[in-house]
């Protein structure tokens, strides 16, 4: 059984935010304009958290991309009154837009604050709407949304695999953020497969998880600064991820 997961290397992340824009482009994430943005209604599914250490001139900043952690024990799931968000058997924290009634309870109970809400009807003035991704539904006003691990890409990859009658291979699926990362700080794959790239990266002693003390069992593993053999090897080998798209 698959357990989709992600490994993010905070040591490779330079905070260039290419992933943020890639995500918005892939998933039809609307922009809300200055006034709503000033109210904290920007809808990015993926944000770059800064961690600042030390005072000038010893300032050290590290960037931590934070997206839906697709928790194994997700706090957002039990509180939804209509099962609009639930855990599917591939470890995805699913969000069913058409079922959502907009109580926003899930968002309150998300310790990572990664869920965003459609406060208004999203607008893409002609011809901006030509860019909209036909494989992702445009969400109406009043529903929650969040990172889906680019579920549409998972489905597409599976359709392709079915078409040429084979199993999904490691690296077949690459979410928009991972795909565009210049330093390949983001890896995506099946954490249940011990041989997958994410599994190997997640085994590092540099690995940690956000707020893991809350017992949310996140599906996203982070790696903090430092060196180990794994890292060096990863550096030289052409990455398996390079096979996708």
């Amino acid at each position, binding site marked *: 059984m698959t357990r989709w997961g992600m490994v993010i290397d905070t040591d490779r992340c330079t905070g260039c935010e290419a992933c943020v824009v890639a995500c918005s482009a892939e998933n039809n994430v609307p922009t809300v304009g200055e006034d709503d943005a000033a109210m904290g209604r920007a809808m990015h599914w993926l944000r770059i958290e800064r961690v600042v250490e030390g005072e000038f001139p010893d300032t050290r900043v590290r960037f931590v991309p934070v997206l839906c952690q697709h928790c194994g024990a997700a706090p957002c799931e039990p509180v939804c009154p209509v*099962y609009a968000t*639930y855990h*599917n*058997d591939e470890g*995805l924290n*699913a*969000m*069913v*837009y*058409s*079922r959502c009634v907009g109580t926003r309870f899930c968002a309150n109970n998300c310790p990572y604050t990664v869920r965003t809400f459609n406060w208004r009807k999203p607008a893409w003035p002609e011809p901006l709407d030509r860019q909209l991704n036909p*494989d*992702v*539904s*445009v*969400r*109406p006003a009043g529903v929650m949304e969040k990172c*889906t691990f680019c*579920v*549409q890409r998972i*489905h597409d990859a599976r*359709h392709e695999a*079915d*078409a040429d009658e084979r199993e999904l291979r490691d690296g077949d699926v690459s979410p928009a953020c991972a795909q565009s990362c210049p330093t390949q700080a983001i890896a995506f794959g099946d954490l249940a497969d011990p041989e997958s790239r994410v599994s190997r990266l997640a085994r590092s002693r540099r690995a940690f998880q956000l707020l893991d003390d809350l017992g949310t069992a996140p599906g996203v593993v982070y790696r903090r600064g430092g060196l180990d053999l794994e890292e060096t090897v990863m550096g030289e080998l052409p990455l398996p991820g390079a096979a996708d798209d």
Partner: protein
Amino acid sequence: MHVVQEELECTRCHRGAAEQKRAGLPPMFVCVACHRHAIPDHPEVAKLLEAYDAKQPILWRKVNVMPESAMVQFHHGAHARAEVACTECHGDVPTMTVAAPVRQVADMSWCVDCHREREASVDCIACHY
């Protein structure tokens, strides 16, 4: 009509239907290729040829429409691959002169039924995303 009298396969013209996510329409070129010779003077066919020569694309009314509010991503090819017969959703098109919706494609219970029978996924995000 095509199928009954001429024993034509649906996919002979609707090529996208077999693999693509969206079945799409065959280009007018395909219709014309035959109908130049086959019953070119039939009034409807005449309209077609006329439009084609005038390089006027025809607008077809979609009969099976998935309402946007359902936020469903339907993959036609996947269903074809699962050997869902065309008629199961599109009805007995072969005998129709005007395509009519015979199934409420927008009725989720109908989708779910079929998925259950065929042990296809009933995971919500199999379709809703």
